[in-house]
């Protein structure tokens, strides 16, 4: 396209000196920083010197076997209920988008019911299910033969009831999250896949869901963290998860505050771990995005330090 150059491009002028200016004074920032620092000192001092926090007791119980037992149960509850909730959510979301009106309204009805009643009520409801159906059986309904049957109280233990309540409730929320993800994928993607001869299932699995993940992951991480804490509600049906384990201990020794602190420390620790996990999952599904690969926290730290170094050296502009 470009013919032989007949006019030389103008030679670039020498680069002028870098600007060196006196920075604006911002006294407001110094005042604000001083106030924040003062308040922080007050809080830390009070926490450290008030003996009623009972940090010794916290240290004593933090790794005690009963608390650790409760922690494991809390993690189990969270993991199983979330896994069930996600599977159910994907199924409900696909049902909700089905062209069959009966299928999509069934999904709508489910979501309406399980989002519309408090999860605490659902937990209690499932723990009393034996009052509603004393016998649970698998077979042909309306008087047909039965293959398996069990006493509801044997089959639905408090733990199973808790899993059912948390998982079925989570499914309703996950359904809306997954649906939002699916409809966020451009229609052209489905068309391109169809034009290549891919079936609806292949298109959903290979093209739509992987792209929907970018939208689905952040709120799912949120839901997981929320589930970790919501699982403490099942303490009302006497499952010795983290909170109930602590309650059992302070029912005897009356050291409520230190034990609640112990529990809080564990919830915070697991939440922090989950946040880190979420970051890496998000990074995996963000591949191909124009914003490029997200830097890890460690990489960012290293880069910041490098810039600080360049400034301190006075070598000029940070790269």
């Amino acid at each position, binding site marked *: *396209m470009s013919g032989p150059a007949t006019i030389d491009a103008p030679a670039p002028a020498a680069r002028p000196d870098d600007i060196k200016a006196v920075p604006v004074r911002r006294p407001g920032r110094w005042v604000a920083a001083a106030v924040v620092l003062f308040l922080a000192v007050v809080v830390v001092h009070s926490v450290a010197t008030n003996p009623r926090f009972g940090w010794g007791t916290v240290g004593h119980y933090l790794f005690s076997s009963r608390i650790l037992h409760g922690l494991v149960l809390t993690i189990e509850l969270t993991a199983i209920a979330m896994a069930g909730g996600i599977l159910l959510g994907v199924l409900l979301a696909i049902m909700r988008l089905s062209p069959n009106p009966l299928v999509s309204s069934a999904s709508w009805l489910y979501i309406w019911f399980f989002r519309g009643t408090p999860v605490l009520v659902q937990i209690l409801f499932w723990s009393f299910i034996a009052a509603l159906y004393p016998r649970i059986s698998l077979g042909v309904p309306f008087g047909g033969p039965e293959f398996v049957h069990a006493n509801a109280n044997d089959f639905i233990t408090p733990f199973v009831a808790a899993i059912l309540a948390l998982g079925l409730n989570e499914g309703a929320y996950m359904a809306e999250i997954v649906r939002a993800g699916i409809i966020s994928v*451009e229609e*052209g*993607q489905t*068309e*391109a*896949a*169809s*034009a*290549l*001869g*891919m*079936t*609806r299932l*292949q298109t959903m699995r*290979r*093209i739509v869901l*992987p*792209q929907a993940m970018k939208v689905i992951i952040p709120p799912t991480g949120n839901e997981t963290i929320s589930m970790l804490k919501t699982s403490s509600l099942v303490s009302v049906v006497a499952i010795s998860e983290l909170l109930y384990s602590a309650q059992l201990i302070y029912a005897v020794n009356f050291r409520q505050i230190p034990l609640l602190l112990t529990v809080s420390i564990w919830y915070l620790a697991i939440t922090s771990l989950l946040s880190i996990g979420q970051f890496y999952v998000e990074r995996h*599904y963000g*591949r*191909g*995005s*124009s914003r490029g690969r997200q830097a890890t926290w460690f990489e960012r730290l290293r880069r910041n330090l490098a810039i600080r170094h360049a400034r301190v050296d006075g070598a000029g502009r940070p790269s």
Partner: protein
Amino acid sequence: MVLAEGVHKSFGRLEVLKGISLEVRPSEVLCLLGPSGSGKSTFLRCINHLESIDAGRLYVDGELVGYRQAGDKLHELHDAEVARKRAEIGMVFQRFNLFPHMTALENVMEAPVRVKKRPREQVRATARELLERVGVADKERVYPAQLSGGQQQRVAIARALAMEPKLMLFDEPTSALDPELVGEVLDVMRALAGAGMTMIVVTHEIGFAREVGDTVAFMDAGVVVETGVPREVFAAPRHERTRAFLSKVL
């Protein structure tokens, strides 16, 4: 290869195709021209059944599109059957529609591996050849977002070719490109036509239609107003509306 007889299509109360009759023979390149909203893209999408037609008959390779005839009754084809037929027709979109979570090479390999169930290694080799043929061999590990529009469209053409289609449909393939990138995509299409591919191209590139098209059809308001050999249609349009359109774009 493609035969349309009185094809009608409405979206709600808006009739976009009002009786389209056309024929495209094997290895022929048909260019569809006309103003926006004249039904060119809709007609193209009917050919691989992305839209179903309301009246008339549409055949690809002698077989009805989207239906099966038994006696004097038409039966809708099952989804799997429609998918199988679409696999034989390549389509290139105005907005490329590459899969953004896959590299260029993965985009090209996806359908042969999943739809045709070909072995991965064999597909990889042909996919590389195709990327080389469209001139983006060095970009096989790159994600679409890092490619220019022209490169994306060329990968999209390679992706369609990977299914070894007997017919290629192009829906305004250069309309979303910067002017300086149009040429590289048209070059690929020109080479494809030269290799004997049957093509239907919806385009605003008059130069391309004149040079590469065996036939041009001018559409307006849901009907084919004029069809013929490009040189004759462009030099001496018989219809008033063709003349008005050409005077604006030439």
